[in-house]
């Protein structure tokens, strides 16, 4: 079976880990992210009838004290860029992370996930911002770790992009 390494990137506490928690095969506890900086999980998706094993590297979130280590992205075929719909600054962090990925790894396929779609009333991100992102050619998916909305779709879309590449 074809395997692809993908990474989960985003600002601190945007819900990357919980976003995928119920959709992946996991043998390690979340503690690994805080100790090692990474937690590796596995998710099998199907693209055009072909099964692909996505080896998901969940990276520690970026904040003012800690930067995401770009070296973890080495060999990745794509990534999920995650922001929190209720925190406008996470969009900026996502943009910045994407910039850094482009510099270090190159323009590999990615999907932009705006998490916490179940809390739209508290959202600080409006449609205009989303439209801007889409205007830049990003694929934007609103998702919710709580309801599971959009998560499968995000993985499937990313796999598709990687496969098409």
């Amino acid at each position, binding site marked *: 079976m*074809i*395997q*692809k*390494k993908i990474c989960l990137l985003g600002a601190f506490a945007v819900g990357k880990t919980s976003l995928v928690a119920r959709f992946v*095969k*996991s*043998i*390690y506890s979340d503690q*690994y992210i805080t100790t*090692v*900086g*990474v*937690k*590796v*999980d*596995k998710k099998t998706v199907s693209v055009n009838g072909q099964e*692909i*094993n996505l*080896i998901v*590297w969940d990276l520690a979130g970026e904040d003012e004290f800690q930067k995401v*280590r770009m*070296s*973890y992205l*080495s*060999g*990745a*075929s794509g990534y999920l860029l995650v922001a929190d719909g209720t925190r406008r600054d996470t969009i900026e962090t996502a943009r910045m992370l994407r910039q850094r990925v482009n510099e270090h790894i190159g323009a590999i396929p990615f999907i932009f996930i705006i998490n916490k779609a179940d809390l739209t009333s508290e959202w600080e991100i409006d449609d205009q911002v989303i439209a801007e992102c889409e205007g830049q050619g990003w694929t934007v998916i609103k998702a919710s770790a709580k309801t599971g909305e959009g998560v499968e779709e995000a993985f499937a879309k990313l796999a598709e992009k990687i496969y098409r590449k």
Partner: protein
Amino acid sequence: MSDSPLRIVPNQPVEPDDPENADSMEAAIDQDEMAELRQLLVGQEQVQLNNILERLNNPRIRAREMSRLLSEAVKLRAARDDSLTEALAPTVVTAFHSSVKKDPRPLAEAISPLMGPAIRRAISTALNAMIQAFDQALKHSFSRQGLKWRVESWRTGKAFAEVVLLRTLVYRVEQVFLIHKQSGLLLQHIAASSVETQDADIVSGMLTAIQEANRNFARDSFGSTQNEHIGTLDLGDREVWFEPSAQAALAVVIRGKAPESLRSDFFAPAIEAIQYEQRETLESFDGDATPFELSRPHLESCLLSKYEGKTDLAKFKIPLYIWLLLALIIAAIGAWAFFAWRESRRWDDYLNKLRAQPGIVITEEGERGGKLFVAGLRDPLAADPETILKEQTPLDPADVISRWEPYQALAPQLVLARAKTLLGPPPSVDLKFEQGKLSAEGAASHQWIADAQRLARFVHGVTEFDDARLIDEDLKELSNQIEQQVIRFILGSVQVAPGQSQTMKDLTDQIQRLVALSPAAGRVARIEIIGHTDTEGDENANQRLSDERSARILSALTAGGVSKDNFLIRGAASKEPVRPETSASDKELNRSVSFKISLLAPGKAASRLQQSKEPGR
């Protein structure tokens, strides 16, 4: 592709709609000029065009051209994407099926160089693991420590061999990961038998992440600029050894303490070989780990292990008490076998003795409830099996169960025995039995003979009773009495001497009784009346006189009521004197009539009668 060949339509002269002659002529001239003009302008191209047309329309030429391009085209297409593979796959699979169905040998021959080594390797790996477990288990089965481990095995539910291996383990390579260095993706993974493994894909990623974290730590803490990697990851009872190459890395999971030399002797050579052999595949790796199946032999060469005092069966000694125990067991089995064999022989011997007995038929024999068992038919007059068992065999009667059904045997000995029981012959009678005939010989009372004649036919197996040689004691006695009687006559006369009337009366009675008793004993009594004279006078006259004397007594006896048929008369003159003549009283006694009795079987009596002189003739 279209079915119809391509066709170039040459410019045809256009038929004018208007049929006017002048116009048509003009048009015809125009056409000719046009054709000429075209020939001048594109004549060359027209020839080329026709050539191309011919090539396109001729399938043979096209096939030839395509064959030149086919392999190149396949290569190009395969490099671009997988659609060619997908398109060909069903056809290839069908071709394989059809080839195997038609004749499996070519395909078998083609893959046998691959299958042989693979099967050999699999078998030898499995055998090695089994032998190792067996060796260790055998060695520790009887020791005190072995007992402790047995308890542990029972407590934990693990196999005893497994516990022994674990406890005597020095080190064992449990898993080997071949990892793509850059992405951390798993290229190949193998594990030793009975090792529990987690999802190797995830573990591979995590091991790479840990390496990466370590590198980051080295950079941040010590400003290391080198691409440091962890050599060994200590996990308590296990270690993970890393052995990198340019594009791949081995991660070897080892339980126990392995010598550092494994790294240089096995792991480094393995990863180097893989790197060398699969450099191109590693460089172009894009997530498809299938080509790395080829690296399995190298990974398997890393599955090493060592156990305490490992598997030297030659040096392994079984404790003395085990030998003694074994010897005891063998002796016990030997003794048991001997006694069982002896018992069986004695039993067979007993059965053969029974079979030899007339009147005993064995229908079933064997063992029942730990005892010997025999059942069958037995004539009540046959030998007693219990007696044979007690007196002729060393078997313990208590160990033998017998069950006999009574029956009457037709064996001659038993018919005879039965006849003896029923008839109860006196000691003077000898009974014999042969081919259905019971014969009695000797002397018996008149009563016994009469009973025997009646009862003999009730003896089972007897069809005929022969008493021809049986003598009736009562008749014999009577005969003797008669034969001792002498009736004297007056000298030279047929006149009975006086004073013999009582003798005559007794004689008549005796003869009457004899004649009456004879038939009951199956006899016919023949009384010969013999006339005698003394030696005086002419022998011819004496003859006549003796004839007349016997006839005289015959008529006296028949007058007394005895049938004439019972008598024979004969004159013996002086030739058979009753007593040799030595005195006058002897002479007197010889002037007499004497009697001779024959007790004949009825048939014989008739024939005797023919030979002798009948009375009254």
